[in-house]
């Protein structure tokens, strides 16, 4: 009975289990690297590394919740990143314009994927597979197969820059105040409608824990230059997407479409339009990912984003997204990306052979889904 209770608990508090897994991975690497893994410098790098996969995972989690899949995102990321590099290097476009054009291009290509798999009813798996090849081909064509470098400093800032510590402190303080107020308002709302309340101490503990986590996060990153720009971008996107998923009409429809598309259609919801928007968002995430990637490398590379789709999909599944659609969280997907990045980073520090890294990452993915399946199905 003991193991069953633990399983049940895991199924209910998936996120908690994931955080525990992260802690275990970090402690493991901490000892093997004699502490080098948990230095501010390495953690800052680690978070920066995860940001691209994290951004893709934020978009992908909606795609998977809606019961679809998009295999083209790695190539798409490479393509829009390459276009950004060309605009910057060859045409010397101002950074604002480069970013805007890249974002529009990402959204349009995402919508094109979505249009094919919804209105034209080509399975998204096939559309993605085709796009994976075709977008990569276009990228190779426009770059003539060579790296485009160097890009301007302002673009590089997007990938390698840091937010000044003071600005970071201010943001964190605002965030903390915001979250505290949200908790208080939620309590008031529930009281107004006479709904069941969690005990006050639980909310207090939650807010304090959140504050401590925020403080730890900030002091660690401030000890090494401040919050990296791509990490800030990821956190912002994670916040916005979580809001979309939980609070908006669109978010509710994403879950409904993935859970039972026919019933949702018969409820008077334009299912195709919902899916189209999801693919559009996915394209936007590819644009952000591409920009960050180009900026981080300070170059547009024809091989950028290779296998990025697999990392993103793996992150979603590790983060507890259901393969059959209908359930999953943005936060979980980001944590999944953190798991993948931690493994990459830790093993690289230990000079583990590349082949071992692949074996370990693949096994972790299968293991994570296995735990999810056995803890979910047994009652």
């Amino acid at each position, binding site marked *: 009975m003991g193991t069953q209770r633990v399983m049940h608990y895991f199924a209910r508090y998936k996120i908690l289990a994931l955080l525990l897994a992260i802690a275990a991975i970090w402690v493991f690497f901490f000892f093997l690297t004699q502490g080098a893994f948990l230095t501010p410098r390495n953690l800052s790098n680690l978070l920066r590394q995860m940001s691209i996969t994290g951004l893709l995972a934020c978009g992908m989690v909606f795609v998977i919740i809606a019961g679809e899949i998009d295999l083209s995102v790695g190539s798409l990321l490479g393509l829009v990143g390459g276009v950004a590099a060309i605009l910057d290097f060859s045409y010397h476009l101002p950074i604002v314009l480069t970013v805007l054009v890249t974002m529009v291009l990402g959204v349009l290509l995402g919508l094109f994927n979505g249009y094919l798999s919804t209105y034209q009813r080509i399975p998204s798996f096939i559309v993605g597979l085709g796009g994976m090849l075709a977008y990569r081909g276009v990228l190779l064509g426009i770059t003539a197969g060579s790296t485009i470098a160097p890009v301007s400093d302002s673009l590089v800032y997007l990938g390698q820059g840091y937010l000044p510590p003071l600005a970071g402190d201010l943001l964190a303080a605002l965030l903390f105040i915001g979250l505290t107020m949200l908790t208080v308002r939620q309590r008031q709302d529930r009281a107004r*409608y006479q*709904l069941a309340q969690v005990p006050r101490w639980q909310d207090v503990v939650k807010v304090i824990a959140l504050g401590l986590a925020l403080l730890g996060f900030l002091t660690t990153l401030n000890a090494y230059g401040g919050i990296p720009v791509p990490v800030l971008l990821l956190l912002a996107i994670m916040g916005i997407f979580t809001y979309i998923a939980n609070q*908006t009409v*669109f978010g*509710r429809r994403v879950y409904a479409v993935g859970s039972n598309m026919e*019933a949702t259609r*018969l409820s008077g*919801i334009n299912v195709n339009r919902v899916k189209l928007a999801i693919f559009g968002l996915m394209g936007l995430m590819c644009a952000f990912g591409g920009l960050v990637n180009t900026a981080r490398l300070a170059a547009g590379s024809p091989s950028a984003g290779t296998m990025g789709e697999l990392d993103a999909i793996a992150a979603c599944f590790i983060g507890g997204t259901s393969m059959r659609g209908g359930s999953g969280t943005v936060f979980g997907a980001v944590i999944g990306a953190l798991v993948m990045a931690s493994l990459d980073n830790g093993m690289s520090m230990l000079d583990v052979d590349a082949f071992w890294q692949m074996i370990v990452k693949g096994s972790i993915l299968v293991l994570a889904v296995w735990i999810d399946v056995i803890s979910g199905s047994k009652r």
Partner: protein
Amino acid sequence: MSDYILEMTGIGKSFSGIKALDGIDLRVAPGECVGLCGENGAGKSTLMKVLSGVYPHGSWDGKILWQGQELKAGSVRDTERAGIVIIHQELMLVPQLSVAENIFMGRELTRPGGRMNYAAMYRRAEALLAELNIEGINVAQPVMNYGGGHQQLIEIAKALNKDAKLLLLDEPSSSLTASEISTLLKIVRDLKKKGVACVYISHKLDEVEAVCDTITVIRDGHHVATQPMKALSTERIISMMVGREIKNLFPREPHAIGDVIFEARHVTCYDVVNPERKRVDDISFSLRRGEILGVAGLVGAGRTELMQAVFGAYPGEYSAEILVEGQVVKIRNPVDAISAGIGMVPEDRKRHGIVPQLGVGQNMTLAVLPGFAHLGRIDAAAELNTIHTAMARLSVKAASPALSIASLSGGNQQKAVLTKMLLPDPKILILDEPTRGVDVGAKYEIYKLIFELVQRGISIIMVSSELPEILGISDRVLVIGEGQLRGDFVNQDLSQEQILAAAIKQPTPSPRAA
């Protein structure tokens, strides 16, 4: 050695601390048919899962004696080997495979080298069907070429091919027409003569009465009574099931009928697979304000297709002209239909009604979400308020609106789906088999709701395969047969026979309009 082939005593089963079954006894003698009655959620399905080995031995309390020996099944395979075969409510056939392949599923006859011995399987399958007096089935044809009624009989043949000594029939008639049901009942009676025992679960008490020797009633997981059918009446069984007397199953209430509010003209639907074939052939009808229009007909007559076309949800090609309050409205999809004031509660609740991973409450508000939104953000408190009001009004029994809808009983799921279609404030509400798989108590509440709605001036179209329901509720009855309108009757002194006769009569040749 006792007289019983099966003796279940003191069966109990808990799910995370909540008792679903508590001290249930069930005894079946060879050649006997026991009717297991109870409302949805009473524990019938759970009991059948215990018996058929879905819940392995050790995960429940009590004792099962099978042919005098204790049965300790670890899986469905074990019980099937012992001769206990369950036929589920949803058919478990593979539509693309042939009838014979389905009958021999998992025990295929093979030639050396593993090749399928089709000749032998076809022969055995034909013999089996002949033994059951099932006619009109070609065993080499794919199962999907046959209707629900034939498929149900194929399921029974499949079960008997496993040397079943005890058949568990879980709502076997829920998708059958009246004539198919009588064939089914006849076959069950034949089986009894051959010494095969049956447990028959059905909400349709007339069937239970027609075929069962003994009735066991359970309620809320407890054993209520086991009595010979002869000593019982339908009313008595119902009152034991619900624990109270239901005087009148159809709570008719007076309501005013106004002018024509809705018209459907020349609705024609073409088959999805074979566009040459018309599923609905030029049907026109109208509906008045506050009227309950019953739509009767055999299963597969085209009633559901007609309703789907009216609601803009028919999957194939179709044409129709729809008028709401005298105005022609263009209905291309359910979005158009709902904004034109038409709502539809679909026939297949599981596939088309519920969104299983959302909570009960979120299912209810799915069609009206933008109404709670400010700049795309849902006002959660306002939504919850609406949900609570609706749950109270329709007495949806769920501990919390956040509870998954899939965990509720059929009746409560149906009420939630109904709420979903009521919240957009429709003028016309289409109910396709609104009481299918719903227990007696919830049925009564749904009928009461229907009358409450017409009193408020909403017009109802109710498709139903249960003629007593059609006669008990409707103001007017449309009869559909083979895609055509076969009758439009005012429900006065109308009899089941009249409706049935209209449904199966040959179409009268009519002069073709130019």
